[in-house]
């Protein structure tokens, strides 16, 4: 930008010397190229978070000049960045503001410059687009304007016995009183005021919007009234007290609700007026949610083209919940789980119970059928087996019927020993002439340092806590000799990497039709190590969420051959009645196996926690994550 033009507009000379110095300093400090040459990125040289400038200030300042693509506020910095959607808007803003407008809340003239790009910041609002936490669904326009009025009308806020004034909001309870001291309800003391009849529409409306599987009849309702500037601290609805899901109806004003996970990741979620937020699974158990106390929210402009500030109005929220009858919670977010935090010993017992009931017992029951479906070895695993030499020892943990035995290179003689927790499967393996033990991956019955190689395929995802998964890898590390290698496979939560469906999803009948080409190329015997449903393919369900709400099961039930919606799930195995044995050939029995499906890098992260081993390779292989480990010499 030509300085003469600006001077002609009455920009004082000193602004330019300030700009020069600032550009020098900020370029060095942020390692970004800055200058007077117009781009769509603008740096505010003389204000930032460290000087009390907020994102809202930046948006207010620049919004009149065009759609804002991003704002990058840097912690502890006296400067900040923003981006317009195009360069011409940035140029107009620069010409109108630089050296002419003042820095918000001060009398200093604003000093701007252009930047080649934005710095990388972790603020989720800095870039678009965004996704909500897993398991959260926001149904917009869930109710009509008339229904909204009806709901608000029956509430009385000014009578002294109606509603409790909390620090930052007013609240009323129906069905059961929520006790703030203990964060629970007294199941034995239902309130006189049940769920108001004005809410009766909820069940049928949910059914209509495609959530009939929840069959949701709320038992408890909390109504909150927030005035502009009010908020609620980050919290999680007590796991052992309330069931899944939790429903939040927003009335009278839009709001931004912030979700946070254990890593500190924050996802702001826009809840428009008259929307219903359905919090289930991970979003309900593994994330806190809260509302910041402020007068405005930063939201996307219409069409998601940019950011803007939205003033808050009075908001009334209806939170619908069901009581949890079994006070136990088996979730995999123990840091947010009252039930598991209460007693870590109990947590282990709970995990042991889940594994006993939903892993060990099930494998014994389905072992015949399971073994029939285990025949095609996976190429990458066979490749690993072929790397061993005569006289070496290879242990297969969770060997099943022993399908990876004898896959070593020709003319090589190995000692192969299998171990499986299922007595039936160990017997299958033994019948095929292999050395096998009945045993468990957390307590390997081997002396330390004896194995040149360890295979552990589709085992660790059956362990119900992080600690137990780590212990299994510790045990592998213990039995490996120095320099020994292990190959571990677990089921991935993400079944579609780079838009390519895993074999597991392709086997879904519906997807097979939709992706005819891909499926014809797929040999029929191509069997995923970890998706054992192949012979008993369940009907595809059109549910938008795979949560099957069953009171008798402690975890969500996965819909086979769909994407995973939860990290900890029960996966159905349908066993058709056997000829002759069963009275009715068509009789089907469904068994549920527990799985912890792994996020990207999760397996690697567990391995890194274990001393003395080195991760040589991490791979995504047909819907599974694999790691290749080496014990340090």
């Amino acid at each position, binding site marked *: 930008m030509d300085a003469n033009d600006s001077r002609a507009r009455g920009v004082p000379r000193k602004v330019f010397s300030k700009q020069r110095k600032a550009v020098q300093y900020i370029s060095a400090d942020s390692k970004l190229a800055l200058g007077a040459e117009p781009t769509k990125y603008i740096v505010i040289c003389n204000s930032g978070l460290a000087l009390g400038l907020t994102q809202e200030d930046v948006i207010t300042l620049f919004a009149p000049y065009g759609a804002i693509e991003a704002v990058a506020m840097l912690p502890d910095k006296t400067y900040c960045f923003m981006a317009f959607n195009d360069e011409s808007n940035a140029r107009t803003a620069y010409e109108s503001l630089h050296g002419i407008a003042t820095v918000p809340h001060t009398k200093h003239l604003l000093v701007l410059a252009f930047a080649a790009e934005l710095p990388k910041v972790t603020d989720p609002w800095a870039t678009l687009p965004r996704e909500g936490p897993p398991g959260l669904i926001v149904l917009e326009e869930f109710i009509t304007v008339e229904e909204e009025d009806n709901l608000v009308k029956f509430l009385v806020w000014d009578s002294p016995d109606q509603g409790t004034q909390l620090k930052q909001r007013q609240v009323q309870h129906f069905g059961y009183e929520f006790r703030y001291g203990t964060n629970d309800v007294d199941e034995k003391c239902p309130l006189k005021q049940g769920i108001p009849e004005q809410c009766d529409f909820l069940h049928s409306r949910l059914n209509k919007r495609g959530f009939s599987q929840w069959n949701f009849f709320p038992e408890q309702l909390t109504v909150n009234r927030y005035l502009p500037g009010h908020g609620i601290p980050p919290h999680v609805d007590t796991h052992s007290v309330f069931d899944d899901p939790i429903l939040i109806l927003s009335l009278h004003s839009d709001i931004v609700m912030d979700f946070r996970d254990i890593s500190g990741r924050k996802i702001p979620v826009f809840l428009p007026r008259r929307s219903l937020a359905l919090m289930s699974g991970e979003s309900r158990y593994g994330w806190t949610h809260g509302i910041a106390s402020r007068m405005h929210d930063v939201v996307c402009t219409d069409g998601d083209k940019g950011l803007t500030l939205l003033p808050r109005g009075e908001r009334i929220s209806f939170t619908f919940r069901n009581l949890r009858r079994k006070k136990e919670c088996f979730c995999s977010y123990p840091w947010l789980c009252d039930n598991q935090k209460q007693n870590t*010993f109990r947590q*282990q*017992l709970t995990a042991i119970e889940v594994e006993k009931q939903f892993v060990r017992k099930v494998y014994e029951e389905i072992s015949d059928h399971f073994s029939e479906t285990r025949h095609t070895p996976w190429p990458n695993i066979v490749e690993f087996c072929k790397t061993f030499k*005569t006289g070496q*020892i290879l242990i297969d943990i969770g060997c099943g019927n022993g399908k990876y035995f004898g896959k070593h290179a020709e003319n090589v003689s190995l000692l192969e020993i299998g171990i499986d927790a299922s*007595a039936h499967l160990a017997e299958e393996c033994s019948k095929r002439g292999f050395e096998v033990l009945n045993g468990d991956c957390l307590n390997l019955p081997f002396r*330390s340092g004896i194995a040149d190689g360890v295979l552990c395929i589709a085992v660790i995802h059956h362990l119900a806590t992080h600690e*137990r998964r780590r212990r299994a890898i510790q045990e592998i590390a213990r039995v490996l000799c120095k320099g020994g290698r292990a190959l571990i496979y677990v089921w991935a939560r993400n079944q579609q990497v780079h838009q390519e469906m895993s074999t597991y999803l392709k086997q879904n009948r519906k997807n097979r039709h939709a992706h005819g080409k891909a499926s014809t190329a797929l040999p029929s015997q191509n069997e995923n190590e970890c998706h054992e449903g192949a012979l008993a393919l369940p009907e595809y369900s059109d549910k938008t969420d795979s949560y099957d709400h069953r009171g008798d099961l402690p975890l969500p039930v996965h819909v086979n051959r769909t994407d995973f919606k939860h990290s900890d799930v029960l996966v159905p195995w349908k066993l058709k009645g056997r000829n002759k044995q069963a009275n009715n050939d068509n009789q089907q029995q469904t068994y549920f196996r527990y799985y912890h499906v792994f996020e990207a890098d999760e397996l690697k992260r567990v391995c890194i926690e274990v001393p003395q081993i080195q991760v040589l390779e991490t791979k995504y292989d047909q819907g599974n994550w694999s790691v290749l480990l080496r014990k340090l010499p």
Partner: protein
Amino acid sequence: MKLLTHNVLSSKCLKGVSVGYPLRLNATDIKVVDVDYNSEFVQRMIPKINYSALYDAAQSIGHHNGLPDTVAEDYEHNEEFLKAVHHVLLEVDIVSGDLECPESGRKFPITRGIPNMLVNENEVNEINDSNGY
């Protein structure tokens, strides 16, 4: 279960057990099978195994005939020794009986050739929760 497998088993995971090796072997049914002899395999296996544990196990079930109580010198070239070791390592199959922890006396049954090494959670050390969340 072959004696080679027995040679790598341990009950170290049991609470209060420090070595858990070698497991005492009681056999009620033994089957002798033919396995192709591979001299290289046996040669490479000898430094890995615990020879005295192998000898004791073989002796305890009366199958130590022809097996010296220590590793032969220059064993790589001692075909007679290697074949004797081959026989004991791979051809003597324990069909039933049990394995006994030398420290705690806990018995692990062997049925149809498969040792049941499963343990209850109260028999093993608790899983360390120290690093927390």
